């Protein structure tokens, strides 16, 4: 079994239901996110549109975080999930530095690394990840990539030309795919970032979450 995620960006409407469901399910502390939806505005008024891109851990086949972790706190499960053992983590932040997707953070409460685990605890109980359940338009498609009859495999087969991953040049082989994405939504260098990068505040930088 090789679990994977696909987000159809044609369907996503940026409601952030997935983000909130993830926060609640995994008790993600304030100022940190396992999953978040990025908004990018494109064009010049009045010819403008807004793109929405959910971002989470890519559960790479060749995960830099797993490789750099000195204590194997980040490890692979048999189903392909890159999981984290917070009791083992020493908080060196090597994984935060290694992840090219910015998907790992230091939990300010436990002082250990944390990230999306595809809700591994729910998967173990044969449930879908919380974000999949919460999505009102079924933009999140989750399943076994090795099963040709799974929804995600069928989706990839149907949209072969349009399936993309983030930063393929890094050689991480992500198991997280996007349909309907483009440079603007998937490449952080393809858009301007003003002060704060945030509609709702002037915060430029967040504390790492640790003692620094």
């Amino acid at each position: 079994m090789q679990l994977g995620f696909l987000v159809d960006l044609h369907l996503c409407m940026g409601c952030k239901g997935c983000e909130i469901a993830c926060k609640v399910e995994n008790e993600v502390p304030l100022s940190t996110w396992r999953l978040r939806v990025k908004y990018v505005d494109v064009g010049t008024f009045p010819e403008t549109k807004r793109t929405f891109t959910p971002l989470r851990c890519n559960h790479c086949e060749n995960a830099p975080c797993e490789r750099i972790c000195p204590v194997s706190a980040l490890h692979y499960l048999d189903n392909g999930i890159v999981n984290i053992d917070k009791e083992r983590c020493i908080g060196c932040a090597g994984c935060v530095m290694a992840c090219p997707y910015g998907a790992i953070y230091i939990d300010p409460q436990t002082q250990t690394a944390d990230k999306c685990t595809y809700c591994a605890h729910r998967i173990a109980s044969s449930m879908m990840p919380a974000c999949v359940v919460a999505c009102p338009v079924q933009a999140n498609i989750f399943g076994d990539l090795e099963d040709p009859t799974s929804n995600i495999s069928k989706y990839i087969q149907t949209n072969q030309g349009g399936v993309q991953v983030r930063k393929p040049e890094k050689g991480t082989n992500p198991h997280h795919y996007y349909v309907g994405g483009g440079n603007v939504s998937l490449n952080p260098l393809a858009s301007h970032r003003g002060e704060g990068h945030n509609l709702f505040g002037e915060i430029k930088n967040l504390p790492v979450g640790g003692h620094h």
Partner: protein
Amino acid sequence: MAHEILAATNAVVTLDVALPGIVWPWLVTVNMWAKSIGTGIIFMLFILQRTHPDSVKNMRLPVSIIAFVFINIFLLFTLADLHQPFRMWHIFVYSNWTSAIAIGSFMASGFLGLLTLLIFLAWKKNDEAYDKVLLWTTILAIPVTLYTAALMSQCTARELWQMPAESAQMILAATLSGSAAMILFGGSKLSYEAKKSMGVILGLSALMAFIIYMSEYVFGPMKAEEVAAILEYIKGDGEYTVMFWLGQWITYLLPMLLIVLSRASKNESVLKLAAILALVGLFLVKHVWLSIPQLLPMS
């Protein structure tokens, strides 16, 4: 290249989480700086024993103590940088052998053990045994110096840090700071001729390190888009431009000039000034190179 479409798309991130602050802060800079001195001075003792054996007869104990102190500073700041320092022992029990951090921890611990043994042998004045152990300590000092470069190259997200260049920079930082420390701590025990030799090593290390930094500065952006974006932080009115150039001048350019001047004027004070500048500047250079890749948005 993504930035080339920006003018056409006028794409602006309007909602994303704020960027995380610097993940590896100045504590990691101290780590690299102290390790360079700790291993570098061992390299220099090894060289001087072969080139100026009479001059370093009485240097065994002080050099071992200096290396021991700086390696302990390196380890202390490594520990201080951990968010869970009391779990440090996990590295030795749950070691992941693909991790440069894990392998480096074992090597650094072994290195510290050898330094302790060197102090003991120097104190006992057992020169024969000391010199045998020094050989193995010097050999181990090479991977101890290099493992931080391996760690940086394992940071897939930070395109600026490429293993070949970082390895060279780590070794050059060690030879630069080791020779500088030897000039300063040599005092009256180290002959002027030996100090002059150290000055040559310092000057050549500075020259080579400067060439590598300038090569990356000029040619790096031609190879990778992320590198180009990162180097913007040290170009023009970039956030780290002043610190970068201050570091280059203090660590490399001024010491090179001062060493030439000291050889022409046979002035030891000028040589010492070059050594002080190199040691101080190395911290700035390392800090800039550590920090700028962390400023780039990953999402």
